[in-house]
């Protein structure tokens, strides 16, 4: 309704108008993309591993003067030592289940390979599906809190052992649902066979768990992040990891009891502060960089928004000062306070409107540039629309105080000497 005279007046204040519109455009472009990146990080950090992460901790320990795993005799001795440790841990009060494992989701250590429908397939060949292995035993599911959705759990008879550098047939495996669906899109993977790591010996899939993330969270693993294979085999070496599930509320107590119990089995081992870690700590460490990045971007966004808001407050205050007299004249000519308030609000809406239109173009452009240069997906419309609305709201918020000051300029200002 009153757009024409406001636009006409703005034409006389091009520099300030253009600067603020550009500032709004740039802020919108950067903040939209930054918030999108933050959103992705948050989503990534919050995705469930498939484990029941509460009451779970990991023991990583190393024997001192352990036998060599390069000969059968050494492997048997090492396995005996591992079984002794497992027995000791399982006897601790407050412990619900214990399983040996080469790794856990989010742990920076993994054993990956590939599975296929055909025996003796070339590693990394066509038709191969990448997977990460968890070498463990019959207590894996209860220890890790994995949910079996088809087939059966491992039993003690399934469990084998091998030197950690040895190759051994893998007669049975439990795989994650994602991997099962990938291998057998028609469903019903249980009872079917697959061939792992180019072996000629079949591996029968005896069970499927709902979800299990691979250890690596790096981008190289992102294509098979949910393709996990559980092999009922204890790996024997100078080094062993045990996942421990405690009864609810007993995590701290059991963690404290671990070192004495293991030292009692044999003191010839290295257990330091880092050796007994709750899963929450593993998760925190894994995503520290992501969270740091998200926080940094959030802070940058906040600063940008504050600077833009301050710019609007500054420019509007300057204009209110500059137009003090004409505000008085407008009041003398019959403008109500609310008319003056609306004048500055509409003026800001116009400038911010131009700014956000430009900002949307810049935001999409920046997103496309990020997509070609970095791993980035297309920014959803919701982020842009929310950004636009937020920007307009910030503009209105920032303009309100100086605009209200303007509306309080008394009409008698019109008579004061220029």
């Amino acid at each position, binding site marked *: 309704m*009153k757009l*024409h*005279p406001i636009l*006409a*007046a703005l034409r*006389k*204040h091009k520099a300030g108008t253009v600067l603020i519109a550009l500032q709004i455009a740039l802020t919108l472009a950067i903040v939209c993309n930054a918030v999108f990146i933050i959103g992705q990080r948050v989503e990534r950090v919050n995705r469930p591993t498939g484990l029941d992460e509460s009451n779970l901790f990991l023991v990583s320990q190393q024997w001192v003067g352990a036998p060599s795993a390069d000969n059968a005799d050494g492997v048997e001795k090492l396995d005996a030592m591992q079984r002794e440790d497992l027995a000791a841990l399982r006897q601790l009060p407050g412990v619900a289940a214990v399983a040996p494992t080469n790794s856990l989701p989010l742990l920076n250590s993994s054993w990956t390979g590939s599975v296929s429908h055909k025996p003796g397939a070339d590693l990394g060949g066509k038709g191969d599906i990448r997977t990460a292995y968890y070498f463990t035993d019959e207590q894996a599911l209860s220890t890790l809190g994995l949910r079996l959705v088809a087939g059966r759990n491992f039993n003690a008879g399934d469990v084998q052992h091998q030197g950690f550098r040895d190759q051994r047939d893998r007669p049975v495996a439990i795989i994650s649902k994602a991997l099962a669906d990938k291998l057998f899109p028609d469903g019903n993977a249980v009872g079917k066979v697959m061939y792992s790591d180019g072996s000629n010996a079949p591996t029968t899939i005896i069970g499927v768990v709902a979800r299990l993330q691979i250890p690596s969270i790096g981008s190289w693993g992102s294509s098979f992040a949910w393709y996990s294979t559980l092999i009922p085999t204890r790996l024997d070496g100078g080094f062993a990891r045990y996942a421990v599930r405690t009864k609810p509320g007993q995590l701290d107590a059991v963690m404290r009891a671990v070192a004495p119990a293991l030292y009692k089995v044999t003191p010839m081992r290295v257990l330091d502060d880092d050796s007994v870690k709750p899963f929450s700590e593993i998760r925190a460490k894994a995503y520290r960089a992501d969270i740091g990045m998200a926080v940094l971007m959030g802070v940058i966004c906040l600063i940008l928004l504050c600077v833009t808001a301050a710019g609007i407050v500054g420019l509007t205050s300057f204009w209110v000062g500059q137009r003090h*007299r*004409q505000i008085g*004249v*407008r*009041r*003398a*000519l*019959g*403008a*109500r*306070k609310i*008319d003056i308030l609306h004048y500055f609000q509409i003026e800001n809406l116009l400038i911010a409107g131009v700014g956000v239109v430009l900002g949307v173009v810049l935001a999409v452009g920046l997103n496309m540039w990020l997509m070609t240069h970095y791993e980035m997906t297309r920014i959803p419309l919701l982020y842009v629309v929310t950004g636009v609305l937020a920007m307009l709201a910030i503009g209105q918020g920032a303009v309100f105080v100086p605009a209200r000051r303007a509306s309080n300029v*008394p*009409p*008698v200002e*019109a*008579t004061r*000497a*220029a």
Partner: protein
Amino acid sequence: MLKMTHLSKVYRTEVVETYALRDFNIDVKEGEFVAVTGPSGSGKTTFLTIAGLLETFSGGEYHLDGIEVSNLNDNARSKIRNEKIGFIFQAFNLIPDLNVFDNIEVPLRYRGMKAAERKQRIMDSLERVGLASRAKHYPAELSGGQQQRVAIARALAGSPRLLLADEPTGNLDTQMARGVMELLEDIHREGATIVMVTHDPELAARAQRNVHIIDGQVVELSEDPRFHTVHAAAGDAHA
């Protein structure tokens, strides 16, 4: 039209109280053309700002068009300013960011008038002041006299019943001042009530009635028709 009784206006600062007006009485009838004169600082502008509802007063009564204005809220005062009163200031007070057309449109927009009627009134009033060809000019591109005529056009466009002018010719040379005065006389003939503050005795003499203000109080010099005629004649002789 405009009646003030025992009106007072005090400006308070931390140290002093200044009585700009005290026991101020005036009664301007509908259709009158009153010239207000007086020494500098006597309260002429103060009187005009109160009369035009630009400012409130400290005591006494003021009836404008039969309404006691001291009880009106800010919005009601704005509405009266917009619809009943036209202002002409010594410093013209055009809005520099807007061209002549848009300047005249300002009060009409606040009245919520339709675009077609606004345009009609703007062109009519520009015609009236002889500046129809300058509608697209900006104030800075006009002479002082032209600017004041635009200001008069702005005041006229809303067809106010009361026109308040504070030294409308103060910033103009004699030639331009005379043009502005003739315009005011035209407007007066068409029925508007005019109150004009001026330092120029020649212009004051052309009004129907002179009100002299000294120290914030009215001193009626003359309502004598002869006084009026003599000065009017003198003015004519000059021209």
